């Protein structure tokens, strides 16, 4: 067996293992909250995750994979001895795997993306020299790591504020939830479809112009909006129970409203002490009518809110699937980017600076992710689902809306970001909009620490393994 064949097998194994790791640990972030809120059963979540992660990896994963493969370091510095690149990429993959094992043992929140990027930069800088690294691209990537949780948080804050004001604050939450469902679905789907299809899907030979994309997006959004409208139409608005209604005569409330209107007229056209007395009278009428309204069924509000949550449970399925799609697209690159660079060297013997990633490699990544999900990831989804009951469907929907749109945008721009950090940012956004009972902000501190720590450690481990590989094979 030649050295090339051994390396080929090692690279495939390392890439598959990294993809497996992503499926085992990261996918739970996309689907876990839907299982926790009861919107999906574990089985449904795993199946949907498998489908959408694979599709996302295959049809949308090449942009980020390209960045990792050839956008971070200038591989042409290794033209003299191309196998160095192979050792480097293999070291990055293995190093990330080891670092993730260590971190999960200690419970540190470490991101696959950050480790791989750190590893590649470390290898590029130390072995290829400082000029081998595309520092301007790297600074874009670093910036995206900071911006993505913030953007996810902003969108989630905005969406939950809308839910709060237009549904929860009103006196008819179920009716307003029914009204807003098609609107929210429309907005979400059009954003998703346009961003995903913008320059055409990968490996699909049809290309669309911007206007065709917009038209398709509008079409898909209208269709899903219509489907959601038909679905919520059948949901019954709860009424006060019969006993409560019999006690108090609703005609009294109507009569009081009329009296109040006349009093306001009188108040506005009088002055001085008369006006003051009329104001006092108005206040008393307000007090009386609210006292009457209170004696409606006291359980009504909690029943209404339960139904609103049920509606958003279904909506959460849509956002969860899009999260899985976006996650597949963004994270499969962590495994396949380095793998692709290494394999192109092993197959051709040359460094090629801009090869497109072949379908089989993206499919391999997708299969690895699904394998990880099926063997271990489902357990993690179940754990998250069991422990996170605080994220009710309305909150989960807002958070996933923010996270999914941000991750899809980043994948479109070819920026490798951490989906977990983005989701954390989105949940914090919902918390800031007063949506969550108790939010532990120490997690944000842990995330900032992980930004600072993961790159040097990822780089150090990669460099160490690189020199080991060089010693064995070189």
């Amino acid at each position: 067996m030649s050295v090339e064949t051994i390396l080929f097998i090692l690279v495939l194994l390392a890439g598959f293992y990294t993809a497996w790791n992503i499926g085992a640990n990261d996918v739970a972030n996309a689907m876990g909250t839907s299982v926790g809120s009861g919107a999906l059963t574990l089985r449904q979540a795993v199946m949907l995750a498998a489908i959408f992660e694979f599709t996302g990896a295959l049809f949308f994963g090449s942009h980020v994979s390209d960045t990792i493969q050839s956008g971070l370091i200038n591989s042409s510095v290794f033209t003299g001895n191309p196998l160095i690149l192979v050792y480097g990429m293999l070291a990055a993959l293995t190093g990330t795997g080891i670092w993730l094992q260590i971190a999960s043992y200690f419970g540190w929140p470490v991101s696959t993306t950050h480790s791989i990027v750190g590893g590649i930069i470390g290898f590029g800088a130390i072995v290829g020299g400082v000029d081998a690294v595309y520092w301007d691209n790297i600074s874009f990537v670093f910036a995206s790591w900071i911006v993505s949780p913030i953007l996810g948080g902003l969108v989630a804050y905005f969406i939950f504020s809308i839910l709060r004001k237009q549904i929860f604050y009103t006196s008819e939450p179920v009716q307003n939830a029914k009204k807003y469902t098609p609107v929210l679905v429309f907005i979400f789907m059009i954003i998703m479809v346009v961003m995903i299809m913008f320059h055409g899907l990968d490996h699909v030979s049809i290309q669309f112009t911007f206007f065709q994309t917009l038209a398709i997006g509008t079409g898909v959004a209208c269709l899903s909006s219509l489907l959601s409208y038909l679905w919520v139409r059948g949901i019954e608005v709860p009424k006060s129970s019969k006993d409560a209604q019999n006690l108090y005569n609703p005609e009294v409330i109507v009569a009081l409203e009329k009296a109040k209107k006349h009093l306001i007229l009188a108040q506005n056209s009088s002055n001085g002490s008369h006006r003051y007395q009329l104001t006092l009278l108005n206040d008393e009428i307000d007090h009386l009518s609210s006292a009457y309204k209170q004696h409606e069924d006291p359980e009504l509000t909690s029943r209404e809110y339960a139904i609103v949550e049920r509606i958003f449970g279904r909506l959460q399925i849509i956002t969860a699937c899009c999260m899985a799609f976006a996650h597949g697209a963004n994270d499969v690159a962590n495994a396949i980017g380095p793998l692709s660079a290494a394999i192109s060297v092993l197959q051709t013997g040359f460094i090629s600076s801009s090869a497109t990633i072949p379908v089989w490699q993206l499919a391999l990544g997708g299969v690895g992710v699904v394998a990880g999900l099926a063997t271990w990831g489902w357990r993690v989804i179940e754990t998250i689902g069991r422990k996170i009951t605080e994220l009710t469907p309305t909150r989960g929907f807002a958070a996933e809306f923010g996270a999914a749109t941000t991750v899809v945008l980043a994948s479109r721009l070819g920026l490798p970001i951490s989906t977990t950090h983005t989701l954390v940012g989105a949940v914090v956004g919902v918390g800031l909009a007063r949506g969550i009972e108790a939010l532990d902000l120490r997690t944000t501190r842990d995330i900032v620490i992980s930004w600072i720590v993961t790159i040097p450690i990822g780089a150090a481990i990669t460099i160490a393994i690189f020199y080991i590989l060089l010693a064995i094979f070189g």
Partner: protein
Amino acid sequence: MLSAILNLFGRSPFAPLQSHMSQVTKCVELLKTLFIALEKKDYEAVQTISDAMSELEHEADLMKNDIRNHLPKSLFLPVDRGNLLEVLGLQDKIAGLAEDTAVLCTLKQIVMLESFKNDFHEFLDKNVETFKSATLIIKEMHELLESSFGGAEALKVRGMVDEVSYKKHESDIIQRKLLKNLFKAENEMSYSTFHLWQKIFESLGDISNFSEKLASRVRLMLDVK
């Protein structure tokens, strides 16, 4: 990165707050039985009930401390932390007042005179009623959380707060009537008994006072004008 998402959610103090209120309610509810026993001059029963109330108040104290221990500064809540802690403190104070009232009744074998018996029961009932209205507000906490302390639900709770204020006002009026009756009967009892009854009326009246304070504090948590 399982731990990042899991660690994001802290222990919510709202359900423990409601449990604490249930504990306080158990204590306050025993007051009626205590005073019925006192009327029948069953002083042994008065002592037993008073001991039971002390136990309940002590347990409420422990629950309160537990809640306070689990509210680190890093926990972000949808309401002002100070308001929440103040509501908790007021709830606990009410349990203490009920216990104090019971203990006062055991210090001496006092007799409930015919002249103020009816007014006294009216007073006791009105105070417990005010407290019960305040407990209804705490029961609404779950709906308030769901609607982020604003909107129609918050307006409904604001109305409930007004109701507690009104009941407290009614209790004050009965208290004045009761005190006048006590003064009329001053020659039928020793000074120490007179003083003891005064203190009992005071701590009982404080139950509605503090219930109103509690309701006002919850009012401050609401996002309404």
